[in-house]
């Protein structure tokens, strides 16, 4: 049976991709950011996931305003790096796992999550930057990827509760897949940032760290944070953090934190990164 062995959350700021592609990851500006991912790169080498379910949002790259899917799952064979206006990032193609992806899609739909199915698309920095942060610059990505795109741009975006519940359903779907696979789920985007209007540049170290604390806790309180709180406290683009809840929802009630990193700033954004492992709970004695 396939199983979810870990959850990873990370910001996906496009400038991090530029730093990797231009070899600036150890300079004064980027050094402290990338140092916080060194542990994870070594850990990933040991963990060797077969597949990553990568929760991200498209930034007007594959989707424009013609179609706005709330939850979309990539069931394709492979995905190219998108040209976001300055040429595609020089990264390997992302290899899908259509069998697992279709299994998850079908299971989710039966579980009453009405997913949009994507067979062909390019993937932008939202998906490729986390791969670079976790795996560096390999010839080929070391695992398959099931992209899961969430609308966090056009309101209403999905509620925290719905995202958490989707994570729970993804876990059930993965655990009903017969092949023996080591599956990780990643939630990306955030943390606090605002890219628009006179309030642009807002960051909130205190709130972000409380959010990280909530993800570490043995409860699901974070699913009830309303959109207005993300907007007020973390800037208009901080809402991306609802995608972290899909990851957290897939791990079950109890988790162990194996790594945590926070850094301000990267361009307009607060960088947050956490690695969690699900903890098997003993069933209460009868």
């Amino acid at each position, binding site marked *: 049976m396939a199983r979810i062995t870990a959850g990873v959350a990370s910001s996906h700021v496009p400038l991090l991709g530029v730093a990797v592609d231009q070899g600036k990851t150890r300079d004064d500006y980027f050094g402290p950011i990338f140092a916080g991912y060194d542990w994870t790169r070594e850990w990933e080498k040991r963990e060797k996931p077969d597949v990553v379910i990568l929760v991200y949002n498209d930034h007007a790259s594959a989707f424009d305003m013609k179609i706005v899917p709330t939850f979309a799952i990539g069931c394709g064979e492979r995905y190219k790096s998108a040209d976001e206006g300055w040429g595609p990032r020089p990264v390997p193609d992302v290899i899908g796992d259509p069998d697992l992806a279709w299994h998850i899609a079908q299971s989710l739909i039966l579980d009453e999550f009405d997913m949009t199915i994507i067979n062909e698309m390019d993937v932008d920095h939202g998906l490729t930057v986390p791969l670079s942060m976790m795996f560096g610059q390999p010839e080929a990505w070391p695992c398959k990827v099931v992209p899961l795109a969430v609308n966090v741009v056009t309101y209403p975006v999905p509620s925290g509760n719905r995202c958490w519940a989707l994570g729970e359903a993804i876990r059930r779907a993965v655990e009903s897949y017969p092949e023996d696979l080591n599956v990780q789920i990643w939630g990306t985007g955030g943390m606090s940032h605002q890219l628009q209007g006179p309030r642009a*540049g807002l*960051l909130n170290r205190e709130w972000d760290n409380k959010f990280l604390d909530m993800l570490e806790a043995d409860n699901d309180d*974070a699913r009830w944070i*309303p959109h207005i709180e993300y907007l007020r406290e973390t800037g*208009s683009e901080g809402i991306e953090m609802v995608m972290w809840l899909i990851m957290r929802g897939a791990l079950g009630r109890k988790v162990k934190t194996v790594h945590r990193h926070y850094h301000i700033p990267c361009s*307009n954004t607060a960088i947050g990164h956490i690695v969690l492992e699900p903890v098997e709970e003993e069933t209460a004695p009868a």
Partner: protein
Amino acid sequence: MTDARNLPRPTQNIHEYLAEFDDIPGTRVYTAARARKGYHINQFAMSLMKAENRERFKADEKAYLDEWDISDEGKAALLARDYNKLLDLGGNVYFLAKLFSTDGLSFAEAVSTMTEYTFPEYREMMLRGGRSPEGNRSIKANRAAAGAADSKGAH
């Protein structure tokens, strides 16, 4: 952080949900109403993903904009790169970013033009930890605080 357990749970009333967005200082939340209003501005911006369109736009911005169903106000704001105005007209920053890159501007530099700061000042603010949420959470709360300060001053 509010105690999440005390918050109302399932379905929210859409009118109440949307009304709260107008209380955030210096922020235009990209609601369905804005998405509808700005549809052609955003689709125009999206067209700049293609190199040949960027070339045509750069050669004659006005002529290129005239091909789109965008109001005169919208075209003027696009020509002037008045990004706050474009947000009011339903532009979304991820779409407008295609215009940033057509202009060769970094995201941070373009974003800084929407604030009270020059780009160097904006960058400095970010290095110092960014804009504080203090006093930036709620227009109503700011007004109430200002009112309280005024009445204090009067006595």
